[in-house]
C-alpha cells in the first residue's frame, strides 16, 4: 500500500492492533458478572460511593456496577431504546424523574415487595409528588456569608433587599431544580400561590442584578470565595463544610423550606430487575443511609436511621422537622416548562 504519511506502516499497524485490543477487552470482561448500570453525582457523593458503598454492594450481590457521572443523564436515556435502556436505575432529582415518567422511560412506582426497606421511609418519600422513591432530601433555603456584616436574614424576601445587589446568587431556571422550585416559591411569596406565575415573573425581574450558576456545586464555591454573599442553596451545600471554620451559615426561611429530593427509579426495559431492586433496597438500608447522610449532609428518607448528634441537630430527622418540607408539584411545572423557560430566559438576559 502506498503511504504518503510521516508515519510508517509499522506504527500504523501497531496503533490499529492496540485499538482493536482495547475494543475487545470490555467485551471479554462483560461476559462474566451481571452488570448494573446506574447514575450518580460526582464530588463527595461519588467518592463515598466508589470507595465504600459500591464495592460492598458488588461483593454482596456478586455483580459489577457501572456508574455514569457525566450529567445530563436524561437525554442519553431518552435516546436509547426502551428495550435496551442505557441505565437500569436512574438517580436524579424529582423534576427530572417526572419528566422521565412523562416520556415513559422510568417506572412510576417501586415494587414494595422487592424493596422491603421502603416500609420504613417517611411519607414524603413515596408521596404522590414523588416518582419512584426518594432516598434523601435536602432543605432549600438561603445560604449566606457571616463575615460581611449583613443584617439578619430570616425570610425569603430578604433576598430581594437592595443591599445585596452585586452579591446575590441564583440559578439558571431552565436547567436547575432549585431555581425552578424557587420560582414557584416566589409565586407563593408575592402572589396567591405557587402556581401564580405572573407574580413569580414580576418577582424575578426585581431580583436583578443577580449572579446565575447552573449547579449547586458552583454556588458553594462562589459563596466560599466571597463572589456571592447571599444565595438560594440547599442546607447540604453549606453544612458539608462544617468543621472547616468557614464564615457561612444556612438560614431556613420563615415561610418554609423547599424539598430537594434525590430520587431512584427503575427503567421499564431493565434486564437485571432483581439486581436493580436490590440496589434500591441497599440505598434505603439504615447503614448506607447513615454513611451517605453523614458524608454529604443529606437528610435520610429512612425514618429508622440514627445519625450522630451533630448531624441530627441540623438535618431533618424527625417527623416534625420533615413535615416542614414543601414538596413541589413537578408534574404541573413540567407541563408548562417550555413557556416558563422562554419567559425566564428573556427576563434574565443581560
Amino acid at each position, binding site marked *: 500500500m502506498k503511504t504518503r504519511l510521516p508515519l510508517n506502516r509499522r506504527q500504523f499497524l501497531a496503533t490499529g492492533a492496540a485499538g482493536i485490543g482495547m475494543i475487545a477487552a470490555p467485551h471479554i470482561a462483560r461476559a462474566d458478572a451481571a452488570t448494573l448500570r446506574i447514575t450518580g453525582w460526582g464530588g463527595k457523593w461519588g467518592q463515598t460511593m466508589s470507595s465504600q458503598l459500591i464495592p460492598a454492594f458488588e461483593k454482596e450481590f456478586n455483580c459489577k456496577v457501572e456508574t455514569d457521572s457525566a450529567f*445530563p443523564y436524561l437525554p442519553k436515556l*431518552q*435516546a436509547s431504546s426502551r428495550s435496551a435502556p442505557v441505565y437500569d436505575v436512574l438517580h436524579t432529582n424529582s423534576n427530572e424523574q417526572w419528566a422521565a415518567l412523562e*416520556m415513559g422511560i422510568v417506572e412510576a412506582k417501586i415494587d414494595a415487595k422487592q424493596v422491603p426497606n421502603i416500609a420504613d421511609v417517611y411519607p414524603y418519600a413515596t408521596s404522590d409528588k414523588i416518582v419512584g422513591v426518594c432516598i434523601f432530601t435536602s432543605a432549600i433555603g438561603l445560604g449566606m456569608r457571616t463575615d460581611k456584616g449583613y443584617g439578619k436574614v430570616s425570610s425569603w424576601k430578604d433576598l430581594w433587599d437592595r443591599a445585596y445587589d452585586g452579591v446575590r446568587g441564583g440559578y*439558571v431556571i431552565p436547567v436547575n431544580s432549585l431555581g425552578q422550585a424557587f420560582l414557584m416559591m416566589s409565586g407563593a411569596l408575592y402572589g396567591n400561590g405557587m402556581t401564580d406565575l405572573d407574580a413569580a415573573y414580576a418577582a424575578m425581574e426585581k431580583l436583578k442584578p443577580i449572579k446565575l450558576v*447552573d449547579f449547586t456545586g458552583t454556588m458553594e464555591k462562589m459563596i466560599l470565595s466571597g*463572589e456571592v454573599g447571599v444565595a438560594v442553596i440547599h442546607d447540604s451545600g453549606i453544612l458539608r463544610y462544617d468543621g472547616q471554620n468557614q464564615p457561612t451559615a444556612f438560614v431556613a426561611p420563615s415561610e418554609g423550606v423547599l424539598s430537594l429530593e434525590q430520587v431512584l427509579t427503575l427503567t421499564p426495559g431493565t434486564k437485571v430487575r432483581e439486581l436493580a431492586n436490590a440496589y434500591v433496597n441497599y440505598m434505603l438500608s439504615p447503614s448506607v443511609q447513615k454513611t451517605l447522610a453523614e458524608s454529604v449532609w443529606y437528610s435520610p428518607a429512612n425514618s429508622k436511621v440514627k445519625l450522630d448528634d451533630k448531624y441530627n441537630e441540623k438535618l431533618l430527622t424527625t417527623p416534625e422537622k420533615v413535615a416542614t418540607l414543601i414538596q413541589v408539584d413537578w408534574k404541573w411545572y413540567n407541563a408548562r416548562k417550555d413557556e416558563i423557560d422562554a419567559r425566564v430566559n428573556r427576563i434574565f*438576559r*443581560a
Partner: protein
Amino acid sequence: MNTIRTGITPIAWLIAPSALLFALFFFLPMGLMAMISLLTGNPVVQANVTLTGKYYQRILSDPYYFEVIGTTLRIGLLTTLAALLIGYPLAHWMARIRSRTGYAMLMMTVLAPMLTGVVVRTFAWMALLSDKGAVNQTLTGLGLISKPLPLMYNEFSIVLGLTHIYVPYMVLTLVGVIGRIDERLEHAAQNLGASPLRAFLEVTLPLSLPGILAGSLLVFALAISAYVTPILMGGFQIMTLPMLIYQQISSSFNVGFAAALGMVLLTISLVLVIAYNRILGLVSGQHDLQ
C-alpha cells in the same frame, strides 16, 4: 499556478474513503437530525411520530430566537476580528523570525493554550476576571478601585475568552501562508522606494489574503459553535445558539426543537461561508481557496 487539468485522473479515487466515511457517519446521522427537526418525536425509539413544522414555526414566530441568533453571529464576528488583529502580527513575526529556538518558543506559546483544553482555559479566565479574581484583587489591593469591575458575565468576557482560544488557530493558519510569501518581494518594493509599512500594505497583505480568509472562516465557524466558553464566561445571562441547543437537549429534552435550531445554525453558516468565499475571491482576483 496552473494545475494540470486533464479531466478526472485516477488520483480522484482517493476521495472514496473519506466520501464513504462522511456518507455513513456524518450525512446519515445529520439527515436523521434534519428529519427529527420535522417530526414530533424520535423515530429511532418511539412508535407513532408524525411530520410537523412546529419547531420551525416556533423559531420564526418568536423574536427572542432572532435575538439569540443575532447574539451568536455578533460574538462570532467580534471574535474573528479580534483574533485576526491579534493573530496577524504574531504570525508575521513567527514567519519571519530567523532563530530556530525563537521559532520553537513562539510555537510553544501558540500551542500551549490550545493543549491546556478549553475547560481549563476558561477556568483561567474566570480566575482572572471574576470579582474575586486576580485582576480585580490586584486593582483593589493597589487602591485603584473600590468596587470590583464587572469584567465577567457579559459579552466582553465571552469574546475575550473565545479570542484567546482561537488566536492560535488563526496564527497557525496565517504562518504557513505568510511564510510562503517570498521576502524578496518585500525587499524589492522597499528598494523601489516604498516604506516598510507601504511594502507590507501593498505586497505582503494582499498576498496573505487567502490565509486571512481561511483563518477567519475557521475562527468564525468555531466561535459560533462554541459552547463551554460562553456558558462559563457569560454567567448564563448571554444566550447563544449552541447554549440554547444544549439547553433544549439536556433540560427540556426537546430533541426536535434542538435539531431545528441546529439546522438553522448550519444553514446560516453555509450561506455566510459561500458569500464570504465569493466576495473575497473577487477581491483577491484569484479563484477562491477551494
